[in-house]
């Protein structure tokens, strides 16, 4: 019985969630606060990973980060080696599959912040950057936290796209969900049982913890 897949799942999900915060939060803010040309088209594009079959998503990713794809070639040109079938590819797959959850929740959170607070901050001499961090994000934090919880959960559960771009390399890219599939295929039902149960418990625990933080303060 190998526990590495579980650990890997959480590492991958953690990195994917961090990436989602870093890239998704600004996008959510722009969608909520700025006038964007062709906003509806952007929204469809951003939310597409939520509704596409994960294998289709994985296939597209393969075209981009595969050895013949633009990102894959750039990666190799930078001397970083092959990108597909590495843990990094698993992080990318989990990130792409889960970032729409963060953007959606955070956007809703930002939209609920009364713009008058931001205007008051402007008249008090602060920059847009400072206002985002001292007013908008603190007031939208419930939406952001909900987004983080959903993003993390989705990233832990990522399977289809991960198998396509990261494969199933034991000890390297075999994540929890992939390991369960693998165990069932090989008839190792006891391994599958244990992994499934642990994955369920730890994910549920993480979500519970986040909802508890979300409860602590209101305004």
């Amino acid at each position: 019985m190998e526990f590495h897949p579980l650990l890997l799942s959480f590492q991958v999900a953690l990195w994917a969630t961090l990436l989602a915060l870093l890239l998704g939060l600004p996008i959510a803010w722009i969608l909520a606060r700025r006038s964007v040309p062709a906003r509806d088209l952007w929204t469809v594009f951003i939310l597409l990973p939520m509704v596409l079959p994960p294998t289709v998503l994985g296939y597209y990713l393969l075209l981009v980060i595969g050895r013949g794809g633009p990102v894959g070639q750039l990666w190799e040109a930078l001397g970083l080696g092959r990108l597909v079938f590495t843990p990094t590819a698993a992080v990318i797959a989990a990130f792409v599959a889960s970032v729409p959850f963060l953007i959606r929740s955070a956007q809703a959170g930002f939209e609920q912040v009364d713009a008058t607070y931001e205007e008051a901050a402007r008249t008090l001499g602060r920059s847009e950057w400072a206002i985002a961090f001292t007013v908008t994000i603190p007031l939208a934090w419930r939406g952001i936290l909900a987004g983080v919880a959903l993003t993390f959960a989705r990233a832990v559960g990522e399977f289809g796209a991960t198998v396509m771009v990261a494969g199933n390399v034991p000890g390297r890219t075999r994540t929890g969900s992939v390991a369960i599939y693998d165990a069932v295929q090989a008839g190792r039902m006891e391994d599958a049982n244990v992994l499934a149960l642990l994955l369920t418990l730890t994910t549920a625990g993480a979500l519970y913890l986040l909802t508890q933080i979300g409860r602590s303060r209101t305004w």
Partner: protein
Amino acid sequence: MVASPPALQVRLEDRLGAFHLSAAFASDEGITGLFGPSGAGKSQILRHLAGLAHARAGRIVLKGRTLFDGAAEIHLAPRERRVGLVFQEYALFPHLDVAGNVAYGLAGWDRKERRRRVGELLEMVELAGYENRQPTSLSGGERQRIALARALAPGPDLLLLDEPFAALDFRVRRELRGALKRLQEETQTPMILVTHSLADVRALASRLILLDGGRVVGSGSTDALLADPGSPEAALLLEAGELG
């Protein structure tokens, strides 16, 4: 002797849907009342002065600094204007305590100086010791005074007040009018007070601008204008104000 130009000179042209704002006025030290019915464009003018709205044409000059010039394409950002604004519902930051609110405009200040300045302002608005209170725990009148302290903290060249008494009952109103007047005299900050109450105007404003339908229909010293509105439009507006 040549009279120095007024502290604030404003000319604004703007269109917002069917509403046409076309106003020119000047204001000086002391408190200038901007009086008119709702929909006259009073709050919109404050937004232009603070830099929160962008007019089509016109010019705003404050103490020799050009804040806005449509022809020269000058439009200073709100943070560069040194114009404070007290919002109608005060807009105190709900996630910060009183000290955090008052200190919000003092970002570049040294810690000790900032604390001293916050204490000084709280004393000025007679709420010394309120540093750690949450905005939600304050009464309407206290909130208004904290909003005043917050807007005055960075030492603005001009303070705008958007119906600062509208949310208060009449006893608190009367008390806070006195407090605002004292604050103006103490800080010598020129103020523009948007109101639809002639009682506010009489108690506070040395100069008065009458606004109706986006246009200035009268301006001058409050006493003179109240005694002789100068035009039937202005007279009608003031009469309506007495009734309202």
